[in-house]
C-alpha cells in the first residue's frame, strides 16, 4: 500500500491550488485527477479574477473573495518564478456594463447594499455614467446606460494558471495520478484509503475537490456538498490589436488579443452542448455594449458546467465524523485560487479550518424543511 500525508481528490483549479499549497507546506501529497471523461470546469473558465459581483447578502464571501484578489499577485509571481509560466494576471479594475435605465438602477442598489454590508472593511465602488464609461472603454453603444466600477477586479489566463499549479505541485515533489476515477474509498478518522488502478493509497488526510463529483463523494466522508451544474457558454473572437484596457463582467480581451464574450447561466443538468439561441443572445448583448465587436469574427465557442452550491457560496468543511476529511467546492476556481493555495491549504495542513470559514460549512444546508 502506498502511504502519503494527504490525498487530494480532484485536479481542477480547486484541487490543484489546494494541492500546491499542501506540498509547499511540506506535506507528502497525492493529487488524483479523473481525465477527459470529467466535466472539467477548469478547462472552460472565462478567466476573471472578480470581486464586484460576489457576496451580496454574504459579507464573509465578499471578504474571502477580496482576500483572494489581494493575494493573487503574490501567487502569480510565485508561480512564474517557480515554473516559468506567466499566468497573465492583471488588475486594472473592472466594469459591469448596464444596458437601459432599469439595469443601472438595480446595479446601483446592489453595489450600495454590498458597501453597507462591508461595514468597516469598506467596499470602494463607483457608478459611472455613459460619458465616464466611454473614457474607459472605446466605442460603447447607445444602449449603455452606465457601469459599476471597482478597483478590485482583474483577469488572468485560467489555462496557464492550471498548468502552472500542476507544474509547481510536481516541482515541489507532489505526485499526480491522472486518469484516476475514485470508486472504492474507506473512511475512518485520520485514516483514509482510496482504491486506484493497481493498488491502494492511504493517508491521514483527504481533500475532496472533485467539483460536481463532490455531491456523491462527500456523504461517504460524513460531509455534505449538494452542488449542481449550471451551464455557461462563451464565444471567442479572432485576435485583435489591444483595444480593451480593462475587463467587464462578460467581455474581456486576453493578452493574446482574442476577445472573450460570456456568459450564460443555464439550468440544463449535465448537458455540455452548445445552444445557438444562447450563443446569439451572448453575441447580441456584446454587440449592444460595444457595437464594433460585431465586425470581428467569432472563431471559437464552448460550453462548460459551473459547480454551484445551493446558495452560490463556497463550501469548506472538515468532517466531524471522520476528522482529517475536508471538502472544498466553489464556482470561482480562478478568483479563489490564491485564497485556496495561500490560506485554505495551510489550514488543512494544520488540521483545522479557521473560525472565519465557519459560515462556509456544508452544515448550513442541513436544515429540516418546514412542515
Amino acid at each position, binding site marked *: 500500500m502506498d502511504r502519503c500525508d494527504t490525498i487530494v481528490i480532484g485536479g481542477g483549479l480547486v484541487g490543484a491550488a489546494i494541492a500546491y499549497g499542501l506540498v509547499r507546506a511540506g506535506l507528502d501529497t497525492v493529487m488524483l485527477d479523473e481525465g477527459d471523461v470529467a466535466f472539467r470546469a477548469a478547462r472552460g473558465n472565462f478567466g476573471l479574477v472578480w470581486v464586484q459581483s460576489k457576496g451580496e447578502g454574504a459579507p464573509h464571501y465578499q471578504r474571502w473573495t477580496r482576500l483572494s484578489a489581494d493575494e493573487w499577485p503574490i501567487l502569480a509571481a510565485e508561480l512564474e518564478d517557480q515554473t516559468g509560466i506567466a499566468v497573465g494576471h492583471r488588475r486594472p479594475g473592472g466594469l459591469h456594463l448596464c444596458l437601459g435605465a432599469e439595469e443601472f438602477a438595480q446595479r446601483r442598489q446592489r453595489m450600495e447594499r454590498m458597501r453597507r454590508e462591508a461595514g468597516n472593511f469598506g467596499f470602494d465602488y463607483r457608478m459611472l455614467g455613459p460619458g465616464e464609461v466611454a473614457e474607459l472603454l472605446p466605442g460603447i453603444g447607445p444602449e449603455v446606460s452606465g457601469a459599476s466600477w471597482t478597483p478590485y477586479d482583474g483577469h488572468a489566463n485560467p489555462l496557464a494558471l492550471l498548468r502552472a499549479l500542476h507544474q509547481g505541485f510536481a516541482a515541489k515533489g507532489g505526485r499526480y495520478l491522472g486518469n484516476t476515477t475514485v470508486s472504492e474509498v474507506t473512511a475512518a478518522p485520520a485514516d483514509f484509503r482510496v482504491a486506484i488502478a493497481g493498488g491502494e493509497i492511504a493517508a491521514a488526510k483527504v481533500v475532496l475537490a472533485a467539483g460536481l463529483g463532490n455531491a456523491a463523494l462527500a456523504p461517504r466522508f460524513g460531509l455534505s456538498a449538494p452542488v449542481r451544474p449550471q451551464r455557461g457558454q462563451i464565444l471567442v473572437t*479572432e485576435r485583435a490589436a489591444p483595444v480593451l484596457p480593462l475587463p467587464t463582467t462578460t467581455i474581456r480581451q486576453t493578452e493574446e488579443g482574442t476577445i472573450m464574450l460570456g456568459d450564460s447561466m443555464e439550468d440544463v443538468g449535465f448537458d455540455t452542448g452548445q445552444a445557438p439561441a444562447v450563443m446569439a443572445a451572448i453575441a447580441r448583448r456584446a454587440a449592444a455594449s460595444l457595437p464594433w465587436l460585431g465586425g470581428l469574427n467569432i472563431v471559437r465557442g464552448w460550453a462548460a458546467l459551473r459547480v454551484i452550491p445551493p446558495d452560490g457560496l463556497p463550501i469548506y468543511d472538515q468532517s466531524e465524523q471522520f476528522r482529517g476529511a475536508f471538502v472544498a467546492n466553489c464556482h470561482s476556481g480562478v478568483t479563489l485560487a490564491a485564497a485556496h493555495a495561500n490560506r485554505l491549504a495551510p489550514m488543512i495542513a494544520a488540521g483545522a479550518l479557521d473560525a472565519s470559514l465557519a459560515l462556509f460549512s456544508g452544515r448550513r444546508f442541513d436544515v429540516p424543511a418546514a412542515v
Partner: protein
Amino acid sequence: MFRPRSEAAPATVTVSVEGRRVRVAAGASAAAAVLAAGLDDIRETATGSRRAPYCMIGVCWECLAEIDGVPSRQSCMVEVAEGMTIRRQIGPRRVDVAPIRR
C-alpha cells in the same frame, strides 16, 4: 508552384491579388486566386509568422485576407467575383471602435 488541372474550367474571372491581375475559373475561391498568383503568403499572424492558404476547406483559418476592404475573411470560403480585390493582412486585426450609427 500550383497550376490548374487540365480539366479545369476556363479562366474567365479577373481579380486583383496584391495588385497583380489574375484570371481564374468562375466558382473558384479567392484562396485559389492567391495560389494562382504565385504568392508565398497572404498574411502575417499576430506574432509575425507568414501564412498561406492551406486546408482550402474552411477549417485551418490560415488563409485570412482582406477581401474588397473587409479584413480577416477566410479566402478559401469566398467565391471570386469579377474585379475582386484581395490583399495581404499583416498582424492582428485592427479594430475601428467608432460606434456604428444606424
